């Protein structure tokens, strides 16, 4: 390992996460000493590794959909032809964000049934707003003179978007995706209430059974995942910085 990887906080957070995943199942005596009144101090219904994978899958799928829709909608409403829809689209998305995900689940489950779909829908609705807003903010912050020059020297609308607007707005847009993903890592825990596997399972089961150890194990892993993803976005931002100069 080079010095650079050693100094990188992302390396350390991932190592700590991996160590926890390996050690938690063997930490029975440690948790027993912390919570002596608990009969089963380690969550063993499923492996933590499988839960981390399921959690990541849930966040990945919902954030990918939210990014796709948020960015496309953001681009659309900042074009001259889409400008009149900007207010209505922002309003709809803001309403989506105001609905607590738990309420979305409560409404979605009777319609869609139990399972992954309502959970994904709730996470998607909750995640679109920051992405849409950052896309709009990023695109409208492109200097007027730069866009005027781009059009004036003969770039088509598509070329202005690809070569000027998106590269200049990219850091702001990615910041929105980052916020959205981090929020969703936390929110994905509630998917467990409708029977979807995620790191929320130990938390929900722990809450129902008054088992603090379960809650702690789920929460620590979720927190570490959020930190790791946040640091990973730092990396993405520096890639973006290099890409936009091409």
């Amino acid at each position, binding site marked *: 390992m080079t010095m650079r990887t050693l100094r990188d906080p992302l390396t350390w957070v991932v190592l700590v996460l991996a160590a926890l995943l390996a050690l938690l199942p063997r930490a029975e005596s440690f948790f027993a000493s912390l919570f002596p009144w608990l009969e089963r101090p380690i969550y063993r219904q499923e492996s933590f590794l499988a839960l981390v994978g399921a959690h990541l899958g849930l966040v990945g799928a919902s954030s990918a959909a939210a990014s796709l829709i948020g960015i496309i909608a953001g681009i659309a409403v900042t074009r001259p032809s889409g400008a009149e829809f900007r207010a209505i689209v922002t309003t709809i998305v803001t309403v989506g964000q105001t609905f607590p995900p738990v309420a979305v689940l409560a409404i979605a489950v009777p319609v869609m049934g139990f399972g992954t779909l309502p959970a994904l829908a709730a996470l998607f609705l909750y995640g679109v707003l920051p992405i849409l807003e950052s896309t709009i903010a990023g695109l409208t912050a492109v200097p007027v003179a730069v866009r*005027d*020059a*781009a059009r*004036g*020297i*003969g*770039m088509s609308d598509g070329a202005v978007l690809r070569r000027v607007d998106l590269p200049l707005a990219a850091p702001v847009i990615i910041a929105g995706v980052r916020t959205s993903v981090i929020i969703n890592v936390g929110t994905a825990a509630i998917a467990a209430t409708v029977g979807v596997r995620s790191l929320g399972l130990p938390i929900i089961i722990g809450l129902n059974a008054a088992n603090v150890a379960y809650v702690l194990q789920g929460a620590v892993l979720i927190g570490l995942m959020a930190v790791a993803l946040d640091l990973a976005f730092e990396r993405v931002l520096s890639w973006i910085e290099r890409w936009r100069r091409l």
Partner: protein
Amino acid sequence: MIEFEQATRRYGDIAAVDGVSLRIERGEFFVIVGSSGAGKSTLLRMINGLIPCSAGTIRIDGRDIRTLNAEDLRRRLGYVIQSIGLFPHWTVARNIAAVPDLLGWPAEKIRARTLALLLLLKLDHEVYLNKYPHQLSIGQQQRVGIARALAADPEGLLMDEPFAALDPITREALQREIASIHRGSGKTIIFVTHDMNEALMLASRIAVMDQGRVVQVGTAAELLTKPSNDFVRSLVGRDDAGLMLLSTEKVADRMRHGAGEGETSITAEASLRQALSRMLLVRAERLAVVDNAGRTIGTIDIGDLVRRR
């Protein structure tokens, strides 16, 4: 050749450009001058279709611009604006290459053209090629802006107050640069400014705009000696119109060739106004005229400045 026929642009009830008819010949340095809000920029942006006509027609080489592909039209006319608008995420080289890149030129040709333009605009390529716009002074940025506009060898240049944001010294340098580019390339240049001195210095013909209309078109001398109304008169300056007139002619136009007389010298390229200023400064009625190499080629007398040609 660019032809305006009753070209009009309305915003609601207000006509920013109101029934303008003009003919700009190939190779002219045509300056549109007027106070802010007169419609100069709007008129300029109507030529490359950035602002469409509400009524009337604009033709380029006899073809209505509405029948032309907007992007092709804009690539035929380089575009330079006051706020410059360099692409902040690209190097100088990439900025200049923007249009050739859109046109799909091969990399070798783009590189050769970029280097040639940096040379033309007196930017050392070893220093500037890989710099980003924010690392340049405003004057250097506008040099790159002009290079970008010239990159694909357009038929003409549209320039919207390109030097208005520059300090006087940089502005003068760039004015000389654009005049020499015009002489060297013979490209049509359409140049918008609110600065009458700039117009007089650069233009082969000037159009004066007021409230969306063209109130007078003519050479600098015509505007100065026969202003068509009070607005034009106020623009050319009541008191120093005569001095402005002197600045439109060069020493070379009025000098007497032969052996030089006079203790102080002036170059043949200098304006008559500079010659007069020199005479006043050194209290001399005659100056020796030298060429660029410093050789004496003639004389100019204070009477030569006043004499009707």
